[in-house]
């Protein structure tokens, strides 16, 4: 049995008085795609944001329990949040490139961290754009504004931007919900390629998408982790009635 890369145990989270996550214990395995599905408001995005501590930004958030990344407790008082966020990249629902050049978008994380020479940064930008399958489309216009790219390109730029930090984990929060089917397909394929080098967690509203690309799936409902299993298993013989109902479209 391999030790999971990320492990939450008895994770509880409150926004003010609102108890959003209940006793969530979930192992995330390295170099796999783990999908998190469930109806709106079930807490799947909130759970995702626990892994890079983005929930810290919301006032009145209280967290109990443990989240470990490679064995290290990321909520330990001495943890440097910025280093966690550099190790755990995130891509958001709506493409959110900076109103800067394509190059400067990808170089952003590296420039912040400092310590890399210019040629090294250039190298890393190229590497990241290639890894996100965007290089060929933008290599002649790295200096032009990222805002001029199409939605799908912008989202792959955001993936490249996250990859530039060479993260261990990539969090994708409904990354294709604002994209057309073609761009969606491209990003799904990209996930399958990327999992060779990073661990991928994807929150999705699209059950079929989870089925297509994930190795494990977590089904969440009302802040609880109802079921977590291998995707092929969960999609054929769900253990829980609620999972079955959701997967077959009875609710959601």
């Amino acid at each position, binding site marked *: 049995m391999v030790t999971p890369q990320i492990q939450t145990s008895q994770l509880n989270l409150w926004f003010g008085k609102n108890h959003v996550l209940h006793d969530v214990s979930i192992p995330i395995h390295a170099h796999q795609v783990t999908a998190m599905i469930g109806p709106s408001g079930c807490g799947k995005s909130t759970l995702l944001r626990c892994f890079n501590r983005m929930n810290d930004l919301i006032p009145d958030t209280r967290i109990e329990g443990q989240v470990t990344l490679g064995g290290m407790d990321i909520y330990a008082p001495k943890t440097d949040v910025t280093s966690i*966020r550099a190790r755990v990249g995130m891509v958001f629902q709506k493409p959110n490139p900076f109103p800067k050049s394509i190059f400067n978008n990808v170089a952003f*994380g590296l420039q912040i961290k400092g310590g890399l020479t210019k040629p090294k940064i250039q190298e890393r930008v190229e590497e990241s754009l290639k890894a996100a399958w965007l290089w060929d489309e933008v290599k002649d216009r790295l200096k032009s504004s990222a805002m001029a790219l199409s939605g799908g390109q912008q989202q792959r730029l955001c993936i490249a931007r996250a990859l530039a930090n060479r993260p261990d984990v990539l969090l994708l929060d409904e990354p294709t919900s604002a994209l057309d089917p073609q761009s969606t397909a491209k990003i799904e394929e990209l996930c399958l390629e990327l999992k060779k080098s990073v661990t991928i967690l994807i929150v999705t509203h699209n059950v079929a998408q989870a089925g297509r690309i994930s190795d494990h799936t977590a089904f969440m409902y009302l802040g609880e982790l109802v079921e977590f299993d291998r995707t092929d298993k969960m999609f054929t013989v769900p253990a829980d009635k609620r999972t079955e109902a959701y997967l077959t479209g009875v609710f959601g």
Partner: protein
Amino acid sequence: MNSFKERLFKAAAYTASLFTIAVLLSIIAGLFGEGLPLFKSFSPGKFLFTNDWYPTHAEPSFGALTLIIGSLAVTLGALVIAIPLGLGSAIFISELAGSRMKEAAKPVIELLAGIPSVVYGLFGMAFLAPLIRQWFKLDTGLNIFTTSIILGVMIVPIICSMSEDALSSVPKSIREASLALGATRVESIFRAVIPAAKSGIIGSILLGFGRAVGETMVVLMLAGGAAKMPTSIFSSARPLTSTIAAEMGETVMGDLHYQSLFALAILLFLLTFVTNLVTELVFLRRGNQ
């Protein structure tokens, strides 16, 4: 009936806007009509690039360079004061203050914009100028330095309020993107949020510049008023605006001195017009993004 009322209202609004434009155009026409004749007897090159402003001499000279430099000196001085203060408070209000603090701070700063400039001038004369005179052991506290401080404080609300709007309108997703890449809050502000709000911030500074260049009462009261080329920040200065205000009463309608003041007004008009035009372009560019 309804459509008649609507048409009537439309016609009234149309007339009002036409009237406004007509008034503006006639002011501009008057300005140029009274000012340009000066250049029949005094060359525009000498007007712009020589120092001697002796409008009432037997052989009058209308070299406005001293006045132009005077205007630019107090205005740039004001910006040196106002940019850090205005931008700093905008960053604080938009990015760092809690919601309660935010609700309180912005109206208070905007309230500063409502204080009549003569009150600023009075304050500067009565309290600041004597202090400056003592601190720097000067003969008089009425100089470019004092003027810049008061003028700077006067345009802080403009820069702060507009920059704050620009910063606040940067979408949350930009901040999240930056933080999620491992930036600290401060790094996010300086590397992601401020660059994203750049055009609005530049616009606010240009607007502040335009306001300061055109301000009359404060410079009339505080700048000292000597039409001599300033040599340091503690020199006295005579900006364009205060020259017009101070000398208009002495002129005879239609004489050279009278024309020369209108020529100064043309200069001021062009300066502010160009500033506003650039500001507008900066904003238009932002609108297109």
